[in-house]
């Protein structure tokens, strides 16, 4: 890639939830804003824009990461997964989402997308994750509504259902 001029927009292409996407971005455009404003995928939320709250968490090449601490130009050619790709279709929920609904793992839902992305990766890569490991992953997310107890319950319920099943 040549040096990209900061005053201009440049074409960026990557894989989003399994499908190729592309759009134009100035070098300074954050991945979170690229997803929301250029692609129009608003499942990824933006809270603090400083890496602290976790609302903007997406998977970049298989690892949950802050999309607000990543430039769109950095993910050229990468594989991005967001909360929008978790369920098989618009009318269905994945096991994790179902558990969050059943156990009141969310109230306003602002933090939820990021949390689901992190937990989905954890249970895929480490199905036997301990409660302490689940808590460590959740420590990367702030929720101002639930007080975390119901989130933890939902996570454990989902893990139980997922064990022995193949994971979406």
């Amino acid at each position, binding site marked *: 890639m040549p040096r*990209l001029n900061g005053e201009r927009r440049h074409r960026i292409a990557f894989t989003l939830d399994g499908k190729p996407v592309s759009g134009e971005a100035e*070098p300074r455009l954050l991945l979170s804003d690229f997803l929301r404003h250029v692609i129009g995928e608003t499942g990824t939320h933006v809270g603090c824009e400083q890496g602290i709250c976790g609302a903007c968490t997406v998977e970049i090449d298989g690892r949950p990461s*802050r999309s607000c*601490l990543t430039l769109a130009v950095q993910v050229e050619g990468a594989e991005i997964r967001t909360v929008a790709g978790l369920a098989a279709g618009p009318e269905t929920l994945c096991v994790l989402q179902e558990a969050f609904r059943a156990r009141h793992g969310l109230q306003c839902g602002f933090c939820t997308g990021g949390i689901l992305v992190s937990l989905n990766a954890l249970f895929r890569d480490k199905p036997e994750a301990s409660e302490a490991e689940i808590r460590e992953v959740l420590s990367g997310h702030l929720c101002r509504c639930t007080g975390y107890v119901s989130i933890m319950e939902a996570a454990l319920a989902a893990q139980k259902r997922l064990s022995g099943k193949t994971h979406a």
Partner: protein
Amino acid sequence: MKPPRFDYFAPQSSAEALAALAEEGGEAFILAGGQSLLPLLTMRLARPRLLIDIMRIEEWREIRLEGGAIRIGAGVRQAELESFPGLARHQPLLALALPFVGHPQTRSRGTVCGSIAFADPSAELPLALLALEGQVHLRSRQRARSLAAADFFTGTMASARAEDEVIEAVSFPVAGEGCGYAFREVTRRGGDFAIAAFAAFVDERSARLGVGGVADRPFLRFMPRPGTKDLDEALDAFAFDLEAREDLHASARYRRELVRRLGRLALEEAERCRA
């Protein structure tokens, strides 16, 4: 807020990166994991003309065991080091300290060398590098040099790195026979920067204590062996000599008390692990 405008360059070779850095003088910043730089940009505390993204440079993406040390290239992410096979055996202190560096969602991007370059006084990896007496390998277009960790860190977010230099790699000595290690820290919440952090390293002849988060940079001192009666006095002297910082999170007095208590616990734990 949103970052100010800058050019972006993601070279594939170190030669291109070093040339760009030399040509722009202080106007170019290295972009590694971005976990400290991006917040500075969005808050507009930094206004570089150019970001040089070094993460596409294959030659810098390697972790290597060589000459009794683990050498970690500039492009190695913290999560990659965490999952390096046998890390806890090669160097237990690294395996102990890494989980305290931010969150899994920041370690996935943040690099080891980026944390050393950032030189935050509370950061865990600079403390571990100092406690183990590791090396920082610097390279510019003109020259290469290696500095001992103690000579590299010079103050709050300040280091001996020149504007045209990149930290090409850092090396942490591997664990020797009969060595024990411990890491402790105090934070308000998991994943926060440490109010005070402690890295203890005990071998057959000596005991060492590194302290982060208390002074303007991490400091290391030889200590009496745990179990000997001079330890209390030595910890007390260390606590005062660090000239503890005072901030929103903790008073200087509280930090001194942490040095006395957690410093002792860390040394005792390292001594137990030696067996």
